[in-house]
């Protein structure tokens, strides 16, 4: 099955976050499916005195288990699973704040650099066939935990392509895919 995240692609046209992602999944056992995801994200972080941007590709590999499925169609149902993800991206911090007294702030800029980050993520979702076609809608939530990230001058990254906001190690992603089953 091949799918494309329609929701985030659509949102990309209206926001600073551009996220394009898709997946390929294949049933390897009765209830177990292997899944590979790939995508590209370009994002900015302008908040609390920060001005940063990051862009780059990411990949995720994993598997999920069909917890409950339709008796007539084994591809319809709810699933849960896990993936590991990695991103290789370029970031630039145009401003990192220096917090002074009474809101007086200044900032320090850092040059652009290449970084990489790795994380584990869960996947919880469901699939439903669109009428009698080969098309499916696949909706899933992706709770993530940042396992490792390279750092420029010790700076914790604020955004990571494929992971999202990363000032804390936990994050939550979602996808609303249109998929086609071959």
């Amino acid at each position, binding site marked *: 099955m091949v799918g494309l995240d329609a929701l985030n692609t659509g949102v990309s046209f209206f926001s600073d976050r551009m996220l394009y992602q898709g997946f390929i999944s294949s049933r390897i056992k009765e209830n177990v499916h292997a899944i590979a995801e790939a995508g590209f994200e370009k994002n900015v972080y302008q*908040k609390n005195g920060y001005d940063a941007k990051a862009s780059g590709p990411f990949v995720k590999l994993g598997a999920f288990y069909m917890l409950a499925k339709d008796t007539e169609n084994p591809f319809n149902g*709810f699933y849960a699973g896990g993936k590991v993800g990695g991103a290789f991206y370029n970031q630039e911090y145009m401003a990192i704040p*220096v917090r*002074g007294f*009474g809101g*007086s702030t200044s900032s320090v800029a850092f040059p652009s650099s290449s970084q990489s980050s790795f994380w584990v993520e*869960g996947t919880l979702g469901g699939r439903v066939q669109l009428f009698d076609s080969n098309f499916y809608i696949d909706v899933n939530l992706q709770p993530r935990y940042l396992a490792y990230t390279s750092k420029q001058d010790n700076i914790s990254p604020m955004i990571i392509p494929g992971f999202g*906001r990363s*000032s804390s190690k*936990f994050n939550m992603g979602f996808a609303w895919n249109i998929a086609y089953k071959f």
Partner: protein
Amino acid sequence: MKYLRYLIVLCGLCMIWSCGGDDDICESGEGTPRMKIGFKSQDGKIKALENVYVAVDYGSGKVELGRQQNVESVLAPLRVDDNAYTDVYVRLEDKGKESQVRISYTTKATYVSPGCGVKKSYENLKAELITADPVKATEVAQNQIENEDKTSIYLLF
């Protein structure tokens, strides 16, 4: 369908999970250190001041830091922009005479945390008394500010 119940609960938990984090608060002590100003009498002894008013110019006029009573030292935040000095104003009475002390320094930027961003530490500290009385003289005790524990400069009254 018994899994479904768990799934929904898990989804809910994950949503709560994802709320935290982004707006980290900079805890005190992690950010740019303030300058500790001590007071001495002219014979070099530490002196407690009954009343002291400190104001600092952060580039857009004087900002009053308020009155302190019976203190041997005060903490004053310095400028964090690229200016090479900060002007500190000290007086002993609310409407009394005021001394201007110019603290000049070089700064070093170090990244601390997502909440605090970058902190500045001050080096090569110098104090110049621009307007004397009530402050009679200045004395640099530490020529750098790494934290708020040590007195950096003394004002002599």
